[in-house]
């Protein structure tokens, strides 16, 4: 995790969309590796994934559930060892470019909305009909329009266990840590540009500290806070994987709260840091064609508090804090 976190942060310094695609692929792979290896089909699939270097995308969102990935309307149906699954997904990032898809759905047609499983739909087994466009402020390179998915394939491609466990054990922690890591990358590059700007000012008048240096110290302080948070949670997650640790800890409420807090804090700090860097660079940060341009950083940054809306996460935390004792 610490290594993947570093990769996301490094990519994020150059292209946040690329970093996001990398992160999302790793999240899907982790779901299979951590929850599917009890099945021969998924063991073979993992080998093929590495061998052929395939790209995995996910269809977790759905029209009608109001952004709650932990509930589904669509259901997988199995007959004679063959699954059929149709889903109206609001966004499927890089759906047009992915090889295979992981799709969340109800376990069966009579299952509750929250009783979900994950189904692997392989290229050739699914069809995507684009329903909406991806004409957004930022993160444009993730190419995430809506699609109507229709798929069918061997029932063995239904991931063993429940999505509830895969979600709390893997998808949520991987998402929050890797997203936060790539946001750290955006923030790092914004501060790098601001620092370069201040140094250029300082060089033009040696002997006097430019007033912007104080602002640089301030924004650098926020960047260090963000970096410490991301690294701390990446390390804590890695430690919780070691055989000495109680793996059940990952399923606890305390851990869920920490992960949610990381997501809220890092996405909020990202917007603040890029904003501060922009004030510092002034018009040169506002221009698209200047070496100090922060336009793309700003556009991409504003996606962070919206990707699983922070208010939604605050509401979940509020509910958990009613019973969680942090002592």
């Amino acid at each position, binding site marked *: 995790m610490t290594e993947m976190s570093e990769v996301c942060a490094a990519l994020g310094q150059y292209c946040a969309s690329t970093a996001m695609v990398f992160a999302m692929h790793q999240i899907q792979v982790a779901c299979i590796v951590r929850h599917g290896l009890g099945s021969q089909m998924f063991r073979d699939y993992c080998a093929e994934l590495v061998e052929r270097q395939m790209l995995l995308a996910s269809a977790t969102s759905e029209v009608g559930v109001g952004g709650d990935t932990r509930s589904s309307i669509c259901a997988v149906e199995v007959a004679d060892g063959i699954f059929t699954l149709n889903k109206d997904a609001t966004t499927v990032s890089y759906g047009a470019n992915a090889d295979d898809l992981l799709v969340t759905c109800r376990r069966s047609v009579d299952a509750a909305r929250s009783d979900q499983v994950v189904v692997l739909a392989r290229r050739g087994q699914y069809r995507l009909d684009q329903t909406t466009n991806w004409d957004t402020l930022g993160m444009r390179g993730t190419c995430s329009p809506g699609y109507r998915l229709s798929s069918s394939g061997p029932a063995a491609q239904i991931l063993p266990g429940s999505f509830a466990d895969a979600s709390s054990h893997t998808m949520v922690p991987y998402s929050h840590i890797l997203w936060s890591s790539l946001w750290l990358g955006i923030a790092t590059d914004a501060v790098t540009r601001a620092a370069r700007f201040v140094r250029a000012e300082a060089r033009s008048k040696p002997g006097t500290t430019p007033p912007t240096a104080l602002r640089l110290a301030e924004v650098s302080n926020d960047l260090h806070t963000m970096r410490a948070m991301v690294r701390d949670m990446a390390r804590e997650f890695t430690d919780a994987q070691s055989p000495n640790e109680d793996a059940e800890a990952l399923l606890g409420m305390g851990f869920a709260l920490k992960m949610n807090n990381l997501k809220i804090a890092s996405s909020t700090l990202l917007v603040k840091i890029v904003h501060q860097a922009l004030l510092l660079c002034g018009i040169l940060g506002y221009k698209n064609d200047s070496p100090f341009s922060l336009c793309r950083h700003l556009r991409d940054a504003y996606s962070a508090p919206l990707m699983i809306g922070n208010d939604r996460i605050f509401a979940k935390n509020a509910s958990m804090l009613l*019973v969680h004792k942090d002592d």
Partner: protein
Amino acid sequence: MSITDIILRTLAEHGRLAADRSLIDDHTDLYQAGLTSHASVNVMLALEGLFDIEFPDRMLRRGVFRSVSSIRQAIEELTAGAASPPQLTGELK
């Protein structure tokens, strides 16, 4: 009223289960019966109030609230050592 009855009534009141109450037995998977994490928090809160207990952090995980039987085990563990059997301190509607 037995602990099991109290759990079943609490589930009926706060669990917002999709499945019919009469179909819930000791080992029914409550999550498959439609218990969401949000509803499970309300069930916990109600049980904490009714039994005058606090579920410690180690018990705040999905496994503990997966079935009537596992919830009962947790309550029995938390009320063990009490001189008398679990007393109902709260009001059931």
